[in-house]
């Protein structure tokens, strides 16, 4: 038994190492590649001495964007894992269910109205409003909620908020409209250390709140009746977890825009790599995987077409949309839809 347990732990450590190395490589590549190509030694000298092109890149040009991407990706990935575990469905993610575009809509509305409220607050309000709308519209006649209904209603709310976003973009003056359009696709261009500090600050607070709730998540995934039988106040616990998940997603959206499909893909991908099956391990795997995807998507968006900076969301969309289609067809085959 101990032998097997060790084998399982070793596999987990190996998976964790793979993720850590992948993240490191993604970060280094992302710092090296761009309009001006740097060598690893340029970066190293810049890091040690604080002088030269490497230092400028780290401090101003690419450093803040990469750190922001890590934070936003981790927040989105963790949020996706929470909903996937909570609803026991790989389709359940804040981007599929319209929470991230709801957060985006609130931010764009705020900008249009010229409000001085901080972005994370707007984003959180929008995300929570979208989540409440989904939760209320998905209530069945007998008062219960079924995961697949929540997901499909969420898809609908997602379309609605996206349409709202498009409408608002048409009401903006041209320069602002282009900027809003780029942000709504999900973009990490022109991020500064303020954005990085913001997403890591919000993320750290939410991570602590989430850590306290991980055990409840492990009970809820056994089903409500069993969770209640094991002493959990299931409804309240589910509400708190969903709230934490929405706020995590909103924290990511506030700095990177509603980048699609990261939250959807990070969980299953991370789980496949680390072999984590417990909620805590799954969330951490998803967060790191989300960070990797986001850093790479931003890198690809910056460098795939020379001289043109695409929004990172275009890249995640290219991989995420086919994945979503595949998931949907698999769920239909399983008869869940």
């Amino acid at each position: 038994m101990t032998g097997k347990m060790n084998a399982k732990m070793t596999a987990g450590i190996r998976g964790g190492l793979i993720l850590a190395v992948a993240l490191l490589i993604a970060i280094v590549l992302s710092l090296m590649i761009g309009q001006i190509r740097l060598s690893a030694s340029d970066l190293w000298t810049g890091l040690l001495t604080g002088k030269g092109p490497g230092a400028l890149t780290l401090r101003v040009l690419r450093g803040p964007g990469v750190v922001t991407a890590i934070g936003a990706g981790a927040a989105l990935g963790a949020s996706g894992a929470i909903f996937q575990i909570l609803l026991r469905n790989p389709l359940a993610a804040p981007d599929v269910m319209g929470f991230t575009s709801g957060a985006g809509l609130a931010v764009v509305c705020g900008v249009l109205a010229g409000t001085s409220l901080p972005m994370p607050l707007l984003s959180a309000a929008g995300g929570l409003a979208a989540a409440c709308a989904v939760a209320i519209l998905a209530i069945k006649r007998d008062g219960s909620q079924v995961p697949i209904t929540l997901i499909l209603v969420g898809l609908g709310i997602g379309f609605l908020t996206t349409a709202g976003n498009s409408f608002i973009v048409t009401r903006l003056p041209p320069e602002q409209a282009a900027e809003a359009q780029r942000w709504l696709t999900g973009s990490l261009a022109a991020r500064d250390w303020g954005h990085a500090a913001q997403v890591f600050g919000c993320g750290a607070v939410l991570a602590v709140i989430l850590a306290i709730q991980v055990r409840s998540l492990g009970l809820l995934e056994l089903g409500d009746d069993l969770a209640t039988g094991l002493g959990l106040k299931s409804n309240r616990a589910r509400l708190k977890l969903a709230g934490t998940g929405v706020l995590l997603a909103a924290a990511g959206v506030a700095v990177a825009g509603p980048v699609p499909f990261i939250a959807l893909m990070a969980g299953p991908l991370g789980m496949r790599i680390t072999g984590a099956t417990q909620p805590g391990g799954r969330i951490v795997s998803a967060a790191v995987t989300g960070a990797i995807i986001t850093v790479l998507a931003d890198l690809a968006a910056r460098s795939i077409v020379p001289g043109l900076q695409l929004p990172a969301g275009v890249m995640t969309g290219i991989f995420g949309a086919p994945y979503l289609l595949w998931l949907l067809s698999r769920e239909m085959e399983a008869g869940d839809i």
Partner: protein
Amino acid sequence: MTRMNDNALKAENLTIGYGERTVIKDLSLDFPSGRMTAILGPNGCGKSTLLRALARLITPAKGTVTLGSDNVFAMDTRALARRLAILPQASKAPEGITVADLVRRGRTPWRGLFSPWSDADAAAVERALKEVGLEDMSERPIDQLSGGQRQRAWIALVLAQDTPCLLLDEPTTWLDLTHQIEVLSLVRERNRAQGVTVITVLHDLNLAARFYDTLVLLGPSGLIAAGSPQDVLMEENLMAGLGLSAMVVPDPITGTPMVVPR
């Protein structure tokens, strides 16, 4: 030494409904402490509803449930979870989770938020795994087990919860006869060894008569009979409750009543 009736469950004038539909009407029943009681009846008669109400998973429109001298609906959730465990029908394990991971979650009511895994927790999990005979498969993912093994893993979860009251909702459904007997035997072992009060929703009348001390037969319009297997499994009761025309003969092995449909 706790008082004899501390672990007796008592339903008093229970009325439970879903929306407009009343499933259980004005039902009063005693589930004696340390005994095994099976709830029998046709589909849709409210067997599971009754069991869920006993475990406070559903709030009745009228009436109350007491455990020992405490009103179940007034108890703290966690305090109740230390005294009463319920295994709902057909639970589905999370993807990839191992037997030990599942069974460990049964210790939740005994653990503080930040308290580490204790020796008592480890001992309870180990004992539960041994009772269901899965001690050698504890690191296997649940989805790789056979149906019978899987059901035993779920039962180990509630055994690890270590409560003096154990409620099981159709624990033998989908299992073949051999595994049904296996599951009921291990539940009875726990009952005999520790005086645990067991209440089970069951379909098989003959197995119920063999393994259980007390039977409760519900019909489409309420309680038909409650008492010893001999008192409950009578031809007129079977007709009234299940609409089953049958002969009742002594089981050639155990002497308990055996229902032979006509």
